[in-house]
């Protein structure tokens, strides 16, 4: 063995190591590939050896070769071998190689699972670290599933080095195995508050990454992040959090409001540019989300813009770039603020850095105004000339067009100028955007009537010089403009000075080299020009010119007839025949001009791009119905199946259709025919935005009803025209009005480009003829904006769109290291875990209710409340670690009996957290609205029917506070059991609230207030009120049969004297015992831990241990106390009876309906039933009562039937099925303990007999 190792080592001496390989490659520059292939052969040999060191060396070299682009996946197995070496050195080499070349398709990956698991649990932190690093690169869904649990354990590792790696890798695990997200999330959240900054940063990193993709699921974490933001000093963490807030604010504008202040503070205070920049960015996002433009935020905008200006002015190009980038975000919502920095941005246009120029261009879009448009465009045109790269030039071109055409040419005051710009742009070589220029030309020429003369002249020149445009390359995109030029010249040929010349230019043989669609337009428009020429010569006696024109066409058109392009060919042959015919007529001296012109008469008007979509489907038209019967599968059986299945339904549709529309259609057809007679040419696929022409193919679609609100119908025109007419009329008026005002201005502006008298006066301030919807994209009316639309279905983050606020279900556990996952769980376990989630859910909804109530109270009160809540949250947080010393005076804090924080509670907290007015950051903490405590006790005075009249509201109020204090003390005592205690404590008291929630899902009637305080005993000195027992049960298992019951008793001093030395004593029964302090005898009384001044009440709690809970219990007790008046003091006593009902042993336990069904099916439960007559309360009140007084929860409710559930402190299930009809309520009950059930039913009966 030893020999073998030595031999291996000697062998190794002759192997190359990585350095040798690199050196070798560098020495073989000329035949590198060959050298490497010999090296790979050597490596293959090395990999065959047993020596792990040799293998590791080989794998190390492979890693290098992989970087050079060689596929090394063939060595995957050897890599796994090296990974599993026990030596760290080799292991690291193996993992590195794996991380470089393993991926989901690597089949040996599945061999690594156990090795990785072993490494993860290695005592050496670096073994674990290396495994985590490697795994982060090649984790597959299988690995993620198998190792999720192990990694999750590592998140709580003692070493921060491992913790941070484990936290980070969880993100990869989530991506590959989304099911792990929910189970792991609570721990991940915990790590946000890890003592180690690295771990904390990792957790922030992961959550930010998750939240970025599905922000809405993480909104509830906002308070926590807010806290981190105001407390963290790590810039990396801050940046991440601030970025995250940027993603969250659009979802929750209130969050934005809260953020502005701390962010502004950071902007002022930080010296780190990166942080400053991200803050500015997020403030911008906030401002955008608050787009309503709150006046008090203008300061923030100013601050941002001002800071950005500093960035842009910085000599550091990076800052300049980012400054511009952020500026463009502000531009969208607050263009005014940016406009003041125009100088700066124009300056950036001259920057040598292309990235910066591009950013500046983006900004220009928002900077233009009527005044400066020409100036800016002129500057841009200069850049176009100077620009070297085509991309930048194209960018410039599109920007110029964007800027000019934005908001319906809003800023263009002189369209002649714009046309000249467009013509100038055609001189750009090699641009891809010819069609863009073309569509602009068409758009302007069509929509701005006054410009047509000028446009036509320009286009004619363009056509004449077409060779300049097409000259260089065939692929030249700029020739698209010829399409526009030809069409404009043809369509508006009446403006042409020399149509003959243009016609000639359009029929040059060179035209045949243009793309087909352009040729087609040429041919068609040549015909139009022909008509114009004919008409021009008509008046003259000399028919020579006209005939020459015909001859020209007859000579030149055959070239197009031969075109390979069908469109060109068809049009050319049509027109050729027409011209030939005309020529014949001309030779007979027949006047034809009139008729030829008639072919092209009528004006083409622009139609809004969305017009077609807006056409309403006529009533009764079913676009999905078959027009003809679909051909059946087999021809022979055609008849029979039709008779059986199809019947006459489709026919019915058709006939009805025609009936309805017959007249209408006939009329329309008439109209359309007329129109078509005037408009025989339809341009195919015009690139302009006005491409919706009335094409013959759509004849049967009633295009007419574009807008039913159009009041006027001009016969002979489609409605869209009328629409337009109205619009034009309106604009004419406007124009007329404005003309007067702007005459002066106009004069100043004119003079550029052309002689003053060649156009109509009004030319320069024409407002566009029709509004084009540039900005708002219309959607079908019932189309809902859906989040998922823009998400890539293959996006791995889609799977991570998981609601994290929903409490964990039992099934959601990470797979643990078993070969077969355990499916079955003991029912008890099941119950425990299931019982938690709905509880928290309810809580949240309850808290919402709370809030409502709060609102109803007067404003002062609610303000106070908020303060309280904040405070008590703090208290609660502290409770988790140490018990704070609370001064008795601050009564607000006594409300601390709030439920423990839970994720779902936070969700609704968020509402609260956000709704509160901004307060100084330090005070902004996660707050939990106070529990139902307050409301339930506040309800006492109004509700308690048995309560004596003399109970002053004031008394109750103060007693309430005292009570809180007591509770608090209690809690401190029972710290260990705190959580559980909280839960049902909560429910015990808040049952009413629960039931409200349960019962009033759809009911509106308010519930009568309920109270579960009852008078125990009273005399002239003192009144004892007893709250329904609350239970603390011990599930620790060691004394399963013994449960504890807490009884709260309110002592109220009714006398004018001071009460002190109160002693509370109960005669224990066999079953129930008062818990006394250690060392006390079984008959000793308990001292009540307070004294009562006159008129004051306070609450004390006593714990009883109970053996059996199936029977109700009555305990006799005595309270002794000393009444101390000014002159004397007397000893008094008061006897009372404590009644432990069976109900009081029940705990409100929510239950899922499926678990409930299972429970009922199990057959372990014995049934019993109860009928109550003459109950005339609404069903939901009834349910509420049962919930409130008897600690049940509603599982499911259907109409007048509800299933309810509760559990005793010893784990007995009690199920009720409550039905009601005509004042009769029948309750079917099941329980695994018949005597308990019997007693509970008795108590139920009693409750309802009272009312």
């Amino acid at each position, binding site marked *: 063995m030893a020999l073998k190792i030595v031999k291996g*080592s000697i062998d*190794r*001496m002759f192997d190359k*190591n*990585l*350095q*040798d390989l*690199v050196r070798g490659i*560098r020495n073989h520059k000329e035949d590198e590939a060959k050298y490497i292939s010999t090296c790979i052969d050597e490596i293959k040999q090395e990999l065959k050896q047993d020596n792990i*060191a040799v293998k590791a060396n080989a794998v190390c070299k492979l*890693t*290098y070769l992989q*970087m050079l*682009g*060689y*596929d090394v996946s063939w060595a995957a197995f050897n890599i796994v071998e090296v990974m599993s070496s026990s*030596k*760290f*050195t080799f292991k*690291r080499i193996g993992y*590195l190689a794996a991380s*470089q070349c393993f*991926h*989901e398709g690597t089949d040996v990956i599945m061999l690594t699972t156990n090795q990785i698991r072993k490494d993860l649990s290695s005592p050496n932190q*670096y073994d674990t*670290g290396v495994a*985590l*690093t490697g795994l*982060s*690169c090649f984790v597959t869904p299988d690995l993620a599933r198998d190792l999720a649990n192990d990694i999750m354990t590592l998140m709580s590792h003692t070493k921060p*080095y491992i913790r*941070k*790696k484990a936290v*980070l*890798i969880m*993100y990869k695990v989530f991506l590959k195995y989304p099911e792990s997200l929910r189970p792991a999330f609570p721990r991940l959240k915990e790590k946000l508050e890890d003592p180690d900054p*690295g771990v904390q*940063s*990792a957790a922030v*990193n992961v959550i930010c*990454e998750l939240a*970025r993709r599905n922000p809405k699921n993480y909104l509830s974490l906002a308070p926590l992040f807010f806290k981190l933001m105001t407390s963290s000093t790590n*810039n*990396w963490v801050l*940046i991440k959090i601030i*970025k995250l807030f940027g993603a969250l604010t659009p979802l929750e504008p209130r969050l934005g409001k809260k953020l502005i202040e701390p962010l502004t503070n950071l902007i002022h205070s930080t010296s780190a*540019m*990166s942080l400053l*920049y991200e803050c500015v960015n997020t403030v911008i996002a906030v401002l955008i989300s608050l787009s309503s433009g709150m006046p008090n935020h203008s300061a923030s905008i100013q601050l941002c813009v001002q800071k950005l200006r500093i960035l842009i002015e910085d000599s550091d*190009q*990076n*800052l*300049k*770039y*980012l400054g511009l980038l952020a500026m463009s975000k502000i531009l969208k919502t607050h263009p005014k603020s940016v406009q003041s920095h125009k100088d700066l941005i124009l300056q950036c246009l001259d920057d*040598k*850095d*292309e*990235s*910066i120029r591009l950013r500046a261009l983006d900004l220009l879009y928002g900077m233009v105004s009527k005044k400066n448009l020409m100036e800016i465009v002129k500057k841009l045109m200069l850049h176009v000339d100077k620009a070297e790269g085509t991309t930048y030039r194209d960018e410039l071109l599109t920007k110029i067009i964007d800027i000019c055409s934005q908001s319906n040419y809003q800023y263009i005051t002189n369209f002649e100028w714009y046309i000249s710009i467009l013509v100038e742009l055609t001189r750009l070589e090699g641009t891809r955007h010819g069609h863009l220029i073309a569509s602009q030309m068409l758009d302007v020429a069509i929509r701005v009537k006054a410009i047509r003369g000028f446009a036509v002249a320009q286009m004619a020149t363009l056509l004449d010089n077409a060779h300049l445009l097409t000259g260089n390359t065939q692929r030249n995109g700029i020739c698209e403009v010829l399409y526009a030029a030809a069409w404009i010249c043809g369509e508006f040929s009446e403006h042409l000075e020399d149509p003959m010349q243009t016609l000639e230019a359009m029929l040059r043989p060179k035209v045949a080299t243009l793309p087909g669609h352009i040729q087609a337009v040429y041919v068609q428009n040549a015909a139009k020009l022909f008509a114009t020429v004919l008409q021009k010569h008509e008046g003259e006696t000399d028919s020579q010119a006209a005939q020459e024109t015909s001859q020209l066409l007859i000579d030149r058109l055959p070239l197009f007839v031969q075109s390979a392009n069908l469109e060109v060919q068809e049009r050319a042959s049509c027109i050729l025949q027409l011209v030939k015919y005309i020529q014949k007529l001309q030779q007979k001296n027949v006047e034809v001009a009139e008729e030829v012109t008639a072919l092209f008469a009528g004006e083409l008007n622009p139609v809004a791009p969305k017009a077609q979509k807006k056409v309403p489907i006529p009533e009764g038209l079913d676009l999905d119905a078959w027009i003809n019967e679909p051909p059946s599968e087999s021809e022979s059986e055609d008849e029979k199946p039709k008779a059986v299945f199809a019947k006459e339904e489709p026919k019915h549709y058709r006939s009805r259709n025609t009936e309805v529309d017959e007249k209408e259609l006939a009329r329309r057809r008439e109209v359309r025919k007329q129109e078509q007679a005037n408009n025989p040419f339809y341009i195919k696929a015009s690139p302009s935005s006005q491409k919706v022409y009335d094409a013959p193919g759509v004849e049967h679609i009633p295009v007419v009803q574009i807008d039913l609100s159009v009041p006027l119908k001009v016969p002979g025109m489609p409605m869209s025209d009328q629409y337009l007419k109205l619009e034009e009329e309106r604009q004419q008026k406007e124009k007329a009005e404005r003309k007067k005002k702007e005459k002066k201005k106009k004069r100043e502006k004119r003079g550029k480009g052309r002689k003053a008298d060649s156009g109509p006066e009004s030319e320069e301030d024409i407002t566009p003829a029709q509004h084009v919807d540039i900005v708002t994209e219309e959607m079908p009316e019932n189309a809902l904006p859906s989040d998922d639309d823009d998400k890539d279905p293959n996006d791995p983050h889609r799977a991570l769109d998981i609601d994290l606020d929903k409490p964990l279900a039992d099934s959601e556990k990470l797979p643990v290291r078993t070969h077969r996952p355990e499916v079955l769980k003991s029912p008890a376990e099941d119950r425990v875990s299931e019982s938690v989630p709905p509880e928290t859910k309810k809580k949240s909804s309850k808290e919402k209710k709370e809030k409502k109530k709060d609102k109803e109270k007067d404003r002062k009160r609610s303000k106070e409340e908020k303060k309280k809540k904040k405070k008590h949250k703090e208290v609660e947080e502290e409770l988790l670690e140490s018990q704070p010393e609370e001064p008795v005076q601050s009564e607000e804090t006594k409300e601390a009996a709030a439920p423990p924080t839970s994720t779902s509670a936070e969700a609704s907290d968020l509402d609260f957290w956000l709704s509160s007015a901004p307060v100084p950051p330090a005070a902004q903490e996660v707050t939990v609205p106070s529990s139902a405590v307050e409301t339930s006790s506040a309800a006492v005075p109004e509700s308690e029917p048995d309560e004596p009249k003399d109970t002053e509201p004031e008394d109750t109020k103060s007693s309430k506070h005292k009570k809180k204090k007591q509770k608090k003390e209690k809690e401190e005592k029972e710290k260990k059991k705190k959580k559980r205690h909280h839960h049902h404590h909560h429910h015990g008291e808040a049952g009413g609230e629960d039931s409200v929630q349960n019962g009033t899902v759809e009911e509106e009637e308010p519930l009568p207030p309920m109270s579960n305080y009852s008078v125990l005993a009273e005399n002239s000195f003192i009144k004892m009120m007893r709250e329904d027992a609350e239970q603390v049960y011990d599930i620790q298992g060691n004394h399963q049969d013994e449960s504890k019951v807490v009884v709260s008793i309110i002592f109220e001093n009714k006398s004018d004297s001071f009460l002190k030395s109160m002693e509370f004593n109960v005669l224990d029964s066999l079953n129930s015992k008062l818990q006394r302090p250690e060392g006390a005898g079984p008959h000793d009384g308990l001292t009540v831990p307070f004294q009562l001044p006159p008129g004051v009440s306070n609450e004390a709690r006593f714990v009883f241990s109970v053996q059996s809970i199936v029977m109700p219990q009555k305990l006799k007790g005595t309270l002794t106390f000393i009444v101390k008046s000014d002159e004397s003091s007397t000893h008094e006593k008061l006897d009372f009876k404590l009644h432990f009902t069976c109900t009081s042993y029940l705990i409100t336990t929510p239950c899922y309906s499926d678990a409930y069904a299972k429970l009922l099916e199990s057959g372990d439960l014995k049934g019993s039933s109860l009928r109550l007559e003459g109950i005339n309360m609404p069903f939901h009140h009834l349910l509420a009562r049962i919930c409130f007084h008897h600690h049940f929860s509603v599982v499911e409710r259907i109409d007048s039937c509800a299933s309810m559930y509760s559990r005793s402190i010893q784990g007995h299930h009690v199920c009720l099925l409550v039905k009601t009809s005509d004042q009769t309520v029948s309750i079917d009950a099941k329980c695994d303990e018949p005597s308990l059930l019997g007693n509970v039913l008795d108590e139920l009966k009693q409750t309802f007999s009272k009312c």
Partner: protein
Amino acid sequence: MIKAILIFNNHGKPRMSKFYEHYTEDTEQQIIRETFHLVSKRDENVCNFLEGGLLIGGSENKLIYRHYATLYFVFCVDSSESELGILDLIQVFVETLDKCFENVCELDLIFHLDKVHNILAEMVMGGMVLETNMSEIITQVEAQGKMEKSETFVFQCPRQDR
């Protein structure tokens, strides 16, 4: 998320490449070439951000790079990363290399690719920033180096003689 970290020299020769998403070796080489093409034609005193590496992820991603003497350090990141933050990170990376190699030069990277990877692994893990504190990174790297040395074996013996 960081999508890829590339180091190549002024001639486009890769010196280290780390992709946090899987690509075939050919695509990886293509990405390196394309990135080099984009980056190398930029002047020295222009900004360090480039939009649209076409191959990696498309327009959402940015290239953030720094040029040191003969080497380009390029990080391809998506929008969740702070541009300036990544620039700092590159600086930290280079300074860490400098500390670990003692006056790092291109040759160090060429001959010790594995070590570069190991250093990087302490900074960035699976595309996410793990640690930005240089001294912490160096501590961890050195601790692992020590471990390696303690596992003495022939593999590590000096081979200057060849």
